[in-house]
């Protein structure tokens, strides 16, 4: 029980804040409540398959395979695989973090995991088709071309900014 309160203390505090706001400003309180409900339903409908795939990935793909394809020595092939993995994804960015965690656990290189996160965040193929339909092909293709450069720059920056000790710590976080 005590552990539960400790783990969920931020959540409980936020509920308390929401209630206080709801009492002071009923309009905003009610609106946030209905938005939260809506988002909850939406997320809970995306999450089960993502985590099931995650579990299957964890059980069936062994460390050696993941290292071979996306580990330190995997070179350009590894970068491309990480990029494609992120691009064919569906779902919001926060769903990518647990998957990134599994990749790290299985021995992917940090650089490739950052590429994966970058691709997931901005070059998802399903999302691109929708972007083009809404904002036009010129906008979408320009942003896509820039994003691919950006993903590489961000991955390089993030990896270079971490010394070996810090990189080791990230791997330890995901064991």
């Amino acid at each position, binding site marked *: 029980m005590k552990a539960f309160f400790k783990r969920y203390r931020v959540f409980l505090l936020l509920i308390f804040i929401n209630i206080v706001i709801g009492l002071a400003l009923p309009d905003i309180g009610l609106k946030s409540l209905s938005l939260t409900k809506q988002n909850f339903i939406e997320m809970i*409908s*995306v999450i089960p398959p993502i985590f099931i795939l995650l*579990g299957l990935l964890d059980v069936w793909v062994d460390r050696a395979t993941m290292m071979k394809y996306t580990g330190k020595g995997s070179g350009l092939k590894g970068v491309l695989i990480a990029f494609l993995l992120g691009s064919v994804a569906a779902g919001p960015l926060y769903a990518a973090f647990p998957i990134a965690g599994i990749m790290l656990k299985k021995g992917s290189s940090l650089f490739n995991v950052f590429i994966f996160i970058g691709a997931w965040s*901005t070059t998802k193929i399903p999302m691109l088709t929708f972007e083009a339909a*809404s904002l036009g092909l010129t906008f979408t293709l320009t942003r896509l071309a820039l994003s691919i450069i*950006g993903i590489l720059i961000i991955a390089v920056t993030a990896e270079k900014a971490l010394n070996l000790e810090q990189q080791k710590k*990230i791997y330890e976080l995901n064991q």
Partner: protein
Amino acid sequence: MPYRSVNKYWGAAMFIYILYVLAGTGLVISFYKDRNKTKMALKKAWKSFENILPQFLSILIIIGLVLAILSPDMITNILGTRSGIWGVLGAAIIGSVTLIPGFVAFPLAAALLKNGAGYMQIAAFVSTLMMVGIVTLPLEIKTFGKRATIIRNISAFLFSLIVAFVIGVLL
């Protein structure tokens, strides 16, 4: 109504459907090959979900509050009427703190463009919306630690400003 449920859009529903088909097929094949491993996979799936649940629930409430306070009208106002660098910065900040699914954000962005918002502002909004996640920082920190998370988000923010600038010049 920019914050309609994502499931109302055919595209999103379709991809969620594909995800379920993938997960379902995976489970069936896995079960056929090895029952115990499949059980383990489900256990791991639940464990990794339970692991992020506290942050996940907190984020849901924060999004609800932020979107309730930051009304669509307000967003339209900042992106639509103010122009120049402040509009771009405002758009980039709004994109960073909100978490609207792309399927909702793109039609919203298209509507804003039609109502006089600049391409530069819209590009900044779309790019930070996708790459920068302020409310999801706790989840990202769980996987990448503080330092890497902050570096990634700051670089993504700065990069989004470059994207905005280039698109603003080109379009």
